[in-house]
């Protein structure tokens, strides 16, 4: 069974690679390369896979999952400029892809057990653009 919890945060980011010229960054990222940054209302969905515990009837305590997402994602990223304030995005380009991978890294150790595994992290940058990350192995 798969269970999903959703959280939201708002943050600004700028997509540029310091090893590339201004023109190359513009060609690669378009308006997102603007160094001053711009913002999104990000939506994060964490999906866990497991079977309901015979005693509790739950795959994972969703209150706990909410606490993990708030602590590891929302409190760090909400109303921040990702490039300046949220490592590793001072050196890793904060694309939606890299954001999904970073969120996976931050929450996966806290949800993993013998019975439960993190299945996917979905990050919506906008309603019309989202990524799904299934871990390094997938």
């Amino acid at each position, binding site marked *: 069974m798969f269970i999903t919890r959703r959280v939201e945060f708002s943050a600004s980011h700028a997509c540029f*690679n310091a*090893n590339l010229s201004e023109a190359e960054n513009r060609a690669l990222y378009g308006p997102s390369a603007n160094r001053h940054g711009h913002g999104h209302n990000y939506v994060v969905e964490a999906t866990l896979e497991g079977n309901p515990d015979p005693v509790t009837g739950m795959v994972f305590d969703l209150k706990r999952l909410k606490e993990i997402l708030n602590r590891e994602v929302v409190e760090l990223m909400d109303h921040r400029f990702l490039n300046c304030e949220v490592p590793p995005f001072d050196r890793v*380009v904060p694309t939606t*892809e*890299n954001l999904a991978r970073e969120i996976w890294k931050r929450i996966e150790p806290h949800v993993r057990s013998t019975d439960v595994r993190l299945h996917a992290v979905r990050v919506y940058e906008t*309603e*019309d*653009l989202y*990524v799904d990350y*299934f871990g390094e192995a997938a």
Partner: protein
Amino acid sequence: MIRLTRRYRFSASHRLHSACLSDTENWELYGKCNNPHGHGHDYVLEVSVRGPIDPASGRVADVAALDRLVGDHVLRVLDHKNLNVEVPEFATAVPTTENLAFAIRDRIERSWAAAFPGPWPRLERIRVQETKRNSFEIRNEE
């Protein structure tokens, strides 16, 4: 591997009518969707691509290139059109959303190599939502 999904919208009209069936059979099968004058929908199209995150760009796909591909080869062809009359695939095939999804998949695949010449990203999934209450999905299994 990561999957990126982009959502697009187009509006089109269609009429469900099979040349293999009588008028009565068509009416019984398709009901009000068989109205001779047609009717329309605001379709939502999701296109998902899959691949590794490029270490230099931090991205799996050039979204602007995907937008151009879908814009030129799908949306330009379908948006504000009468599918039965103006879209070649439906000169013979019934423009059900199943057939529409396959037509969109084929159009995207035909132009894929020109838009994405490398081994990645690959087209993974097409989902067409006809209304909020029904959707049709094709997955490219590998």
